[in-house]
């Protein structure tokens, strides 16, 4: 089972243009900031948002292709969609909610309710079938929503920020259970999230989208080690630069330059981890090849480290210990010297 999709869709002036291929057994997480078009992508795959261009193919069957005039309506697509806000039908009991899809697909009432009870047991909610959704906690409600979708045995499972509405402690439990259910699920799985931890913890592969476009795709390790966007770099907490490399000197697009060890010529990304950035009161006289003057714009205590945001050419973030800040007498607005060793600049082609 595979999903192959080229989604060109739009809500008003906002356009998304995303190409996606997910193999069976693979769990792909679509990661992106709010408003990146993640939910629009899922709605398009589910048939709730018509494509303008492109094609959605599941197991070789075309679900939608505007050019060919093909469009299978939502209710006839073999999909399951789990929503961030659960969207359990408030007028139906928990059991009836789970049975809803089975009933809609023609199963007899008694059989469907029995099946619903089995699914409630599987998600750890046996005996809760008579309750109304309003009386459930967030974690319980999302379990019911999951059971409601899994009961239909969909070929494509779409999860739209399933944990975003849960509180922190519930989220941990729910994530563990969700992972267990996803592991035993045979179809194609696609998870949308703006939470990098969720994405890294669950997914085999990440697809990073922003402004309706794919920025990067790869394994979580690959994406975090080689960020290709400010968004991912910020998530991982590293300094990302883009520029043109020539004989180990990278001329940065936003001004300034960096010397790196063993950089191939051409358009490149360069990553500098903040903890490898050293700060000095006076111009250092030593081995670091990259030395420039900056001004401390901001100091933030994070855990046992202080993140110092520096303006300069180029601007950079340094991570130092509180003791170092005290010894240096560093404060907001202070002028400092920044030093980065060439071997700490990691370079890869853009």
């Amino acid at each position, binding site marked *: 089972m595979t999903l192959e999709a080229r989604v060109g869709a739009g809500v008003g002036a906002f356009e998304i243009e995303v190409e996606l291929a997910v193999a069976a057994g693979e769990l792909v997480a679509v990661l992106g900031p709010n408003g990146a078009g993640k939910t629009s992508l899922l*709605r398009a795959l*589910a*048939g*709730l948002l018509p494509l303008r261009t492109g094609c959605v193919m599941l197991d070789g069957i075309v679900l939608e292709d505007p050019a060919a005039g093909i469009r299978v*309506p*939502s*209710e*006839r*697509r073999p*999909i*399951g*969609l789990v*929503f961030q*806000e659960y*969207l359990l*039908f*408030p*007028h*139906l009991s928990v059991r009836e909610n789970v049975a*809803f*899809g089975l009933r*809609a*697909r023609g199963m007899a009432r008694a059989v469907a309710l029995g099946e619903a009870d089995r699914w409630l047991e599987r998600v750890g909610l046996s005996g809760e079938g008579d309750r109304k959704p309003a009386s459930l906690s967030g974690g319980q409600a999302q379990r019911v929503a999951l059971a*409601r*979708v899994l009961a*239909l045995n969909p070929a494509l499972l779409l999860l739209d920020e399933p944990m975003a509405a849960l509180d922190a402690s519930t989220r941990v439990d729910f994530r563990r259970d969700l992972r267990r259910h996803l592991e035993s699920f045979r179809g194609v799985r696609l998870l949308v999230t703006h939470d990098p931890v969720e994405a890294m913890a669950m997914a085999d592969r990440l697809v990073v989208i922003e402004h309706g476009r794919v920025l990067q795709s790869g394994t979580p390790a690959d994406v975090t080690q080689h960020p290709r966007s400010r968004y991912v770099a910020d998530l991982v907490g590293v300094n990302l630069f883009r520029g043109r490399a020539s004989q180990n000197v990278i001329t940065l697009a936003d001004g300034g330059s960096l010397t790196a060890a063993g950089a191939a010529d051409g358009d490149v990304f360069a990553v500098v981890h903040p903890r490898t950035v050293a700060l000095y009161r006076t111009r250092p006289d030593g081995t670091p090849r990259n030395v420039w003057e900056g001004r401390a714009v901001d100091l933030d205590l994070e855990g046992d480290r202080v993140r110092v945001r520096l303006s300069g050419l180029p601007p950079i973030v340094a991570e130092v210990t509180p003791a170092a800040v005290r010894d240096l007498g560093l404060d907001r607005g202070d002028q400092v010297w920044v030093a980065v060793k060439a071997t700490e600049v990691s370079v890869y082609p853009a």
Partner: protein
Amino acid sequence: MALPTRSRRRLRPSAPLPIVILASAGAAFFIIPLLGLLLRTPWTSAWQQLGSVEVLAALRLSLLASLSATAIALTLGVPLAWTFARLTFPGRSVLRALTVLPMVLPPVVGGVALLLAFGRRGLVGGWLATTFGVHLPFTTAGAIIAETFVAMPFLVITVEAGLRSMDTRFEDAARTLGASRWTVLWRVTLPLVRPSLIAGAVLCWARALGEFGATITFAGNFPGRTQTMPLAVYLALESNPDAAIVLSLVLLGVSLAVLIGLRDRWLGQL
């Protein structure tokens, strides 16, 4: 201590005297007629009046006509409300304005318009008579039509508002679970707008029950056939004022019941 009373006094806004006088007059304007009705009610003979043949006939007819009008309004008005809330098509706003027009139209004008449409020589009335042998004017069916015409807009706009404020993602969820549009409508949409459906139906029924102008114009005033309670009240005022008062009291009771029943929806603090 003096402090609490002083602060409490400061919280209570003091009104200018002219406002107090005018507001009191305004309130009295509503209270005195109700008081008049209650004080003049012949309580001892009320049951006897209610049991009289004409009063019972009017009561029965009113219930039949207003409930039938509500049923028709639900059958036709809910699809209309759904159309206004969910579809966009050219001329929608004009069509919508026309369907709610009876709310502001003088009912007598509505009655005249109905005569011109369904009367013997009306737009479709003649065709109805020759093809189906159906005569609407001056029949019970005519009274029902007149009440529906005037009352249905209340249902349409109430249900439409309910549909518009509903979270349509529930419908999306139902569709991705495999429910056809028809199933979504019956099992998700209508149950979710149930409060609006009830409020709309009750408002519609109350309006139908009190209908006078359009009914008397289109259906006439035949006891037992088209003489509904409001018509009976009006006529009884000359011949049998006590019966008129008792009938009025019944209608007042119904209105109060509707108001109390819908107070959560319309009048939060009542």
